[in-house]
């Protein structure tokens, strides 16, 4: 269970996250939506313990992120935006490093690494250095390190960004397979993805929640004219709803 309570994060000139509160339970796949700069990544960085909140609390399985960051980080698998990894390392060395840091050794370490290499289909590039890999493979390396320790909580910041349709399909498949008895939070700009993998969606704008519900509930709230006119499909209706709740400030 992730509990986020009155979470606020201020930067010098603006408030990225503004009094955000929600909880996520086991088995939920939460789609985290919002325009660029809405505070999605900042929220994820706080949940994973990279950034400290200005105020408010985040607890993961009862552990407070500020008081007990190591316990939270041990429970969480995180794919940061852009899937950063060490370019000079081979895929195998990189995963070995992550496995060691996660406390695995010997036979178990090898099994874990073998398992994730199979899960995200990295077998053909294991011995290559990461900087020689294509964007899709790099993304998969990032996913591999995030799921290596079979985390209870998986936080993925734009996991399918820049992937081709086949790769997107594979990643979604993977998320669906992983989701049982886990908490998954996925940020994305691709609304069809939300309909495809998420059990719940939260839309945030300017650091605040503007909508929270199952993808079907949100689709049903799409403005009538948009639903009739150019958005007959489910993702289309979701997109119409997304625009109607996030564009208000701009217009």
């Amino acid at each position: 269970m992730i509990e986020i309570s009155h979470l606020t994060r201020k930067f010098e000139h603006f408030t990225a996250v503004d009094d955000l509160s929600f909880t996520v339970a086991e088995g939920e796949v939460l789609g985290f939506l919002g325009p660029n700069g809405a505070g999605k990544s900042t929220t994820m960085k706080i949940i994973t313990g990279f950034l400290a909140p200005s105020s408010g609390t985040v607890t993961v399985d009862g552990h407070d992120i500020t008081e007990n960051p190591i316990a939270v980080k041990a429970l969480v698998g995180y794919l940061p935006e852009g899937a950063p990894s060490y370019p000079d390392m081979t895929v195998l060395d990189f995963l070995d490093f992550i496995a060691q840091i996660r406390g695995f050794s010997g036979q178990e370490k090898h099994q874990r690494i073998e398992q994730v290499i199979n899960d995200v289909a990295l077998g053909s590039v294991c011995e290559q250095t990461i900087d020689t890999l294509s964007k899709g493979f790099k993304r998969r390396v990032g996913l591999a390190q995030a799921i290596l320790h079979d985390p209870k909580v998986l936080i993925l910041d734009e996991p399918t960004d820049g992937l081709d349709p086949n790769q997107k399909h594979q990643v979604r498949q993977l998320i669906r397979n992983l989701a049982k008895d886990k908490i998954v939070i996925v940020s994305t700009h691709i609304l069809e993805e939300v309909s495809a993998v998420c059990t719940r969606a939260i839309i945030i704008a300017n650091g605040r929640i503007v909508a929270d519900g199952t993808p079907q509930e949100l689709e049903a709230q799409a403005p009538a004219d948009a639903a009739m006119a150019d958005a007959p499909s489910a993702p289309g209706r979701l997109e119409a709803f997304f625009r109607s709740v996030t564009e208000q400030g701009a217009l």
Partner: protein
Amino acid sequence: MGTTGIIFKRELAAYFSTPLAYVFIVIFLVMNGIATFDLGGFYQRGQADLQPFFNFHPWLYLFMIPALAMGLWADERKTGTIELLLTLPIQLHEAVLGKFLAAWVLSGIALLLTFPVWLTVNYLGDPDNGVILAAYIGSWLMAGGFLAIGSCMSALTRNAVIAFILTAAICFLFVVSGSAIVMNAFTGWAPQTLIDAIATLSFLTHFEAISRGVLDIRDLLFFAAVIAAWLLASAVVIEIKKAN
């Protein structure tokens, strides 16, 4: 193996997975050779010691060590891996220490590979090897001081070249702080205690004391304190700057 050890191993391997480690070691050895045998007049002096070799080290480190340290944190920020590293279940100080130790051990390897100079002086004469050992220890400690400064400067920026220049500049101040260049700027207006305090910060004074063979605990503690203080500053800077 602890977390610090795992990070240390990764960092050291990273130095050797690019040409950086090899370039560093080769240039270090070549420069040492030039300094000792040409500039230092090793043969002409007619003395069986390594003074000309060690006297050159502070100046050699001034532009070599920043090259080792500049990427420590700047590269992590630039590639975004800092977010990966600091969301793993590790303590910040373990990362700071592991990275520092990797750079320090690499500088130690380069220093050890200067052993032919030691062989030469032992072949030609009968030097005091105790003094030479003390000077090696002093040189390595000084390299550690430079590297700790470099770690902090590297944490300040995502641009490794800027980190290089800042490190070289600050290290220069620490090297010359006991010399006339700096002292003249203070004499006349600053109280004597301040002038004395600044003079004691000089890397050169402490290193020269050790390299004469006097392993005074105060000189060793000085370098230990410099390393500890700058590593602590690195951690503070990383904590503050990581959000940007």
